[in-house]
């Protein structure tokens, strides 16, 4: 009942600027968050639920006038923590494995030529050889987070993040030489 009413209200354009803002961010970032959660080992349905939950939390926090300096970093921090919680609830299961190696090898990714595929495979294996923390740092950096923000997600210092990043980049670079 109430939802119907709300639906009508919305169609009349009766939404708050904050709701519009969060809805915009949701639309812009949900795919990134969802995919990040998949790389954390969440299964697709859980990753999607968790993503949705993250943006509702963002709304609740902003609605209380709590200041969020960098909403994207906030979103990834909350997604990461919720994701770990979700994963630990399913700890007796294998984490989700997207079988990226197979997909690259069989040409299901943008790399079409043999040479490109081989290169991508080498790079993928190098990423897989990183320590879990190096990998997390790299993935979060790829989502646009700064070292201090990554540190806040992983509970380590910004300088340690810098060290992890340096090691990660050095290993990845070596994979191509």
């Amino acid at each position, binding site marked *: 009942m109430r939802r119907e009413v709300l639906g009508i209200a919305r169609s009349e354009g009766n939404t708050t600027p904050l709701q519009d803002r969060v809805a915009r961010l949701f639309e812009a970032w949900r795919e990134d968050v969802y995919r990040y959660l998949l790389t954390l080992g969440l299964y697709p349905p859980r990753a999607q639920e968790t993503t949705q939950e993250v943006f509702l939390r963002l709304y609740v926090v902003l609605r209380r006038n709590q200041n969020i300096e960098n909403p994207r970093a906030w979103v990834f921090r909350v997604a990461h923590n919720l994701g770990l919680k979700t994963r630990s609830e399913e700890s007796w299961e294998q984490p989700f494995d997207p079988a990226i190696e197979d997909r690259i090898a069989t040409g299901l990714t943008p790399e079409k030529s043999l040479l490109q595929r081989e290169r991508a495979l080498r*790079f993928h294996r190098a990423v897989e050889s990183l320590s879990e923390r190096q990998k997390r740092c790299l993935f979060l950096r790829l989502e646009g987070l700064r070292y201090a923000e990554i540190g806040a997600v992983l509970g380590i210092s910004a300088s340690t993040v810098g060290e992890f990043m340096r090691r990660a980049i050095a290993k990845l670079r070596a994979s191509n030489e």
Partner: protein
Amino acid sequence: MNNFETGHPADGDLLGYLDGELQGRDVKRMEDHLAACWQCRAELQELQRTIAECVQYRKTVNSSLPEPPEPWFDIYRRFDQAGTLRTPVMVRLWNVFRPIVVRPQPWAAAAVLALAVWAAVDHFRHEAEPAPAKPAPAAAIVRVPLSQTEASPAPAPQTPRADTPRRDIEQAPTPGDELRVLAVLHRLGADLGEPVEVTRGSKRVLVAGIGVAPHLQRQIEQELEGMPRVIVHFSEPAAVIPPPVAGIPGAVGRRTDLAALESQMETHLGGRTAYEEFASDVLDTSDAAMSRVHALHRLAEQFPPEVESKMTRAERALLTGLRLEHAAALQNVSAALNARAMPVLSLLGGQPPQQQAPAPAPSWQAAAEQLFQEARNMESLLGAMLGGAATNLSAEDLPVRILSSLAAVHAYAQFQTGTDPPAGMTSMPSGHTGQGRPKRAPHRASKSIE
């Protein structure tokens, strides 16, 4: 950043420069150097190329990952719901727990949730327990909509009242009832870091979970269905506000003595990579230990000696079995932790402590409390040494303190695997906090980050 007056900047600094992570003066120095040095400019370009490859890799990965299984929800419709959720309890609980949380820890999150569930259940129990004249059926599976669990004052849940009066089952649940529920959860693997809380009320054993995976919810419901005087209650997570990050850790730079300790460890271990692996291993193993410690602590709290002594023989055996399983697992994990950390810590000047006998405890429950206190201490010390958490201790003291703490935790774990307290153990002074601490290092408060 190192002073590279005599040479080139380290590649970490080059990356830091590209990532905009260098501070004012260092940027200037880097730019001056780059202006002069072709080598480093070429190096910078190499780095950029690797970064570009990372970006390409992200595209590759993203194109390999499956699309979301469902259409995205209409967020406008959920704003309404999100607005009605009440979160102050969760926030307060977070603040209680924050001091001991140095990195994402499944068990700590679960502890917070468990408490929150408890609070919700307390409210719920109030509403759900029928008047004496109308007892609920033996087992009721209750699903309370989100808005009713978290919003307060909530309308009373409808389900448990619709029942047939049967006077004969109106009997308070026993600790044994509670224990059998715990045994079921244990068998399902839902007693380690699961946000499932079991509470024995005056009429019912309440099993409550927030955000439990759906298939686990079903399993728990099925297993508990036949049990008398049990209510199962699941709800979805409230909009928990994650703990605000008060000052980003490490943003101000690591304390110099701790940084020096870190490089010492690096040297002993043979390089940065080895150190990172070490730190990662130790912290992960310590997390695994904490989840067991937590499980034991929970048993000790829910079944104090006076309760245990009134249980039937079979119930006591069941309790002992649960406890020993956790204790044995803890002993293994703790041995692994010691084996990994001891050599390094010893090289840093920590004397391996002579095996500490646990402080006298009158019961396994009291010993579990001591274990819990000591394990929390260990956790914060390790966080300070390896996880970048703040500490009042000097880098000089840390290794010794950690060695003592590790040894103490291990001794307590061993103690828990024994069935009886050693003969001759007398009563413990009242007030349990810190009783089990090793005797050394008394001059400095062991509150490292609390």
